[in-house]
């Protein structure tokens, strides 16, 4: 009974699986690590390592909800990271200029993806794989080996503490809230869910399917640029190569967060917590003394578990409604 009602909660609210797991894992981590974890500095370390992934996973969420895939995230991150490390932005003003630049770069990539997928009806995986390779090609042209320096105003400004509060929280909370509002409380966001659930029905309901899908890719591109900005703050240096493991972990975070790769169901908060969970697992395993070689096994198993729990819940819901 308890199990079945828990499962039905998980099917109704897909992000609750990852939130539950996060709390459990955090307790384990805190017990293993001692009270350092709960200090502002400890929290800040934990968040700094996962915030770029969280924003990257949010970028993917917009496209995954439409029923598509966006691989260009990895390329956009590589390109914006490279630009930040070679362009020589200086000071706080430079950090703001850089923010505008990464958003523009992301918007350009998103526009290309959106035009080709929404209006020319090309397959999203093929298109975004192409733009991913192309953008990291441009990055390699600008910086032919890892190197360069990200401005201090970004590298230190975004990773420290502001008083007792980690800057990462100051970024992440409003970001998650804004993305959630955009998806769940605007016509555009509801249109995104609509086309992911049933494209023909969305059209019959009067949704401008192409325009909505285009804007989903555009938004994903801009958010991917932000993710590149945060990656740069975290690493402090430039790397023109696209990071495939970052891309795959971002997809894993989306799945753990309960967003369906079939489209139409999911949340931003789930993806953000999913990203945090992946980072937390690494840290917890390290803290309890498990070799880091096992990290991948745990992360993979966790992802399958999260997907399984989510689908068990909806299977039981289906059986209940069939029975009644």
């Amino acid at each position, binding site marked *: 009974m308890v199990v079945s009602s828990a499962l039905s909660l998980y099917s109704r609210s897909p992000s609750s699986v990852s939130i539950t797991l996060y709390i459990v894992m955090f307790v384990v981590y805190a017990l293993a690590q001692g009270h350092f974890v709960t200090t502002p500095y400890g929290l800040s370390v934990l968040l700094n390592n996962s915030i770029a992934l969280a924003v990257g996973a949010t970028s993917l969420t917009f496209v995954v909800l439409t029923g598509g895939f966006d691989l260009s995230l990895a390329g956009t991150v590589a390109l914006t990271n490279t630009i930040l490390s070679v362009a020589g932005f200086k000071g706080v003003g430079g950090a703001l200029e850089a923010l505008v630049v990464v958003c523009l770069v992301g918007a350009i990539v998103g526009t290309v993806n959106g035009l080709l997928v929404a209006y020319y009806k090309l397959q999203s995986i093929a298109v975004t794989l192409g733009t991913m390779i192309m953008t990291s090609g441009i990055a390699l042209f600008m910086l032919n080996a890892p190197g360069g320096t990200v401005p201090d105003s970004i590298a230190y400004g975004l990773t420290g503490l502001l008083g007792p509060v980690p800057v990462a929280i100051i970024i992440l909370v409003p970001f998650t809230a804004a993305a959630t509002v955009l998806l769940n409380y*605007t016509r555009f966001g509801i249109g995104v869910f609509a086309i992911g659930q049933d494209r023909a*029905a969305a059209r019959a309901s009067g949704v401008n399917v192409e325009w909505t899908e285009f804007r989903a890719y555009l938004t994903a591109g801009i958010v991917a640029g932000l993710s590149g900005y945060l990656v740069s703050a975290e690493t402090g240096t430039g790397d023109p190569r696209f990071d495939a493991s970052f891309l795959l972990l971002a997809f894993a975070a989306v799945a753990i967060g309960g967003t369906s790769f079939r489209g*139409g169901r999911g949340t931003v908060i789930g993806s953000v917590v999913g990203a945090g969970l992946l980072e937390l697992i690494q840290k917890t395993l390290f803290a309890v003394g498990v070799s880091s070689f096992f990290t991948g096994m745990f992360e993979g198993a966790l992802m399958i578990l999260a997907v399984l729990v989510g689908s068990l819940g909806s299977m039981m819901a289906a059986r209940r409604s069939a029975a009644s």
Partner: protein
Amino acid sequence: MDEVLHIGDLAKAFGATQALKNISFDIARGEARALLGENGAGKSTCVKILNGLVRPDSGTIRLSGREYRPSGLSDAQKAGVSTAFQELSLLPDLSVAINLAMPDLPTNDFNIVRFEEVRRRATATLAGYHIFDIDPASLISSLTLSDKQRLEIIRALSRNPTLLILDEPTAALTDVGWLYERIRALKAEGRAILFITHRLREARDLCESATVLRNGEVAGTVNLADTSDNELFRLMIGRSMGTAFAERPDKTGPAVKDEKEKIVLSVDGLRSGAFGPATFSIRRGEVVGVAALEGQGQRVLFNALAGIARITAGEVRINGKSVKLGSPAVAKKHGISFVPEERKEEGLFFGLLTRANVSISNIGRVSRFGLIGRKVEIDGISPVSEAVDLPSRYHDLPVDALSGGNQQKALIARVLFAGAKCLLMFDPTRGVDVGTKQAIYSVIREAASEGKSILLYSTELRELTALCDRCVVIYDNRIVGECPAESLKEEELLETMHDAHAGGAREELRGGREQRVKSL
């Protein structure tokens, strides 16, 4: 200006198939018009054209006297044409309220959707149509099919259309009376309604007139009060009156002569979904026909026997042995092969060669050491290709390059190649040319003379009377009669359908009254 809709000389072809031609009819203000016709007659193409989902090749449409050429659904809605679709167009994981408000959700100054307003409007809309048992906050996916259908209709109504199209709205509706009231109110307001249905009684209750389509053309537009059911059936059925049938060599086949001849397939009390219970059997070398109007449950029967639909009760015996048909693979193992009606969706593998499409049902026979050799494959399938009259030059072409008729031959060749002893053929001559029809007829006769048992459904009664040893008649998910070989005539089948229809109408009337009493 009294017509709301004028359609003149509308034509549409998909590739080589002429889906519609010379379609002309008008609908006046305050008129409800039934659009009748068998599956494939062109009704859905008409609906799609009126919604801007398909562009006609030629012809004119005028809406309230103005040229009407919708570029898409929302364009059609803006022009005043609104449709309740049979395959519902509601969004499953969004709430009832959002679905009713789509796409122009009310927002505040910051473009944030005002959900309390969405909900308030939904409650008002539902109340306006006398619906109080649906919670505007519930997700569409949690509703029953009947409630979804009501919402689909409400959404179409709430757009205040000048022309309302109802595409088989009663298929899942439990309370038809509710719809009747809505439609009467619309008629009183002077709006026009196009009502697509298979149920004549509903057409009579709601509509003054009917346009019957057959084979892509208007078979007739009639005043329903002056037209008998039999006349309507006649207009609907019999899409190729011109097709000649060679008389069967022996009207009473060998199977019928010898009553003790072995029964291959017997079905006892079978139920599946809404269908059943059904009891019948097929002997060795016998062709049993299924006569039914569109949508009476015959599809479920075929799917159940093919292992696609779940059998919920009853027993299927093959050669006297009880079998469980859990999947198409199991059905095939027991020697049952299915020729489905949708060649594209359920049958052929587009993109594979024709020979691969034929041999796939028995792929072990054309492979050696696990590899498929072209020569082995072609040698293997040649006899069945010849049997269905599929020229060998097509073997190496992708199956999608073939005409519809040759695709159908390839599909039948595959079933023969599987070596099945029992063939289920669901409308095998639908949408194929006359030559292919003749080839299919001779395949059916040959297969029967070789001792195969065949269950054949056709929308064309003439095919059934010419090919079958006997026929069962299905109406409203039940077998309502059987015509033995001696009396197997079109009139006889029509009569049985008509009697069932009349009886069913009385029963439904009683049921409807009880329901009304209950709801009071």
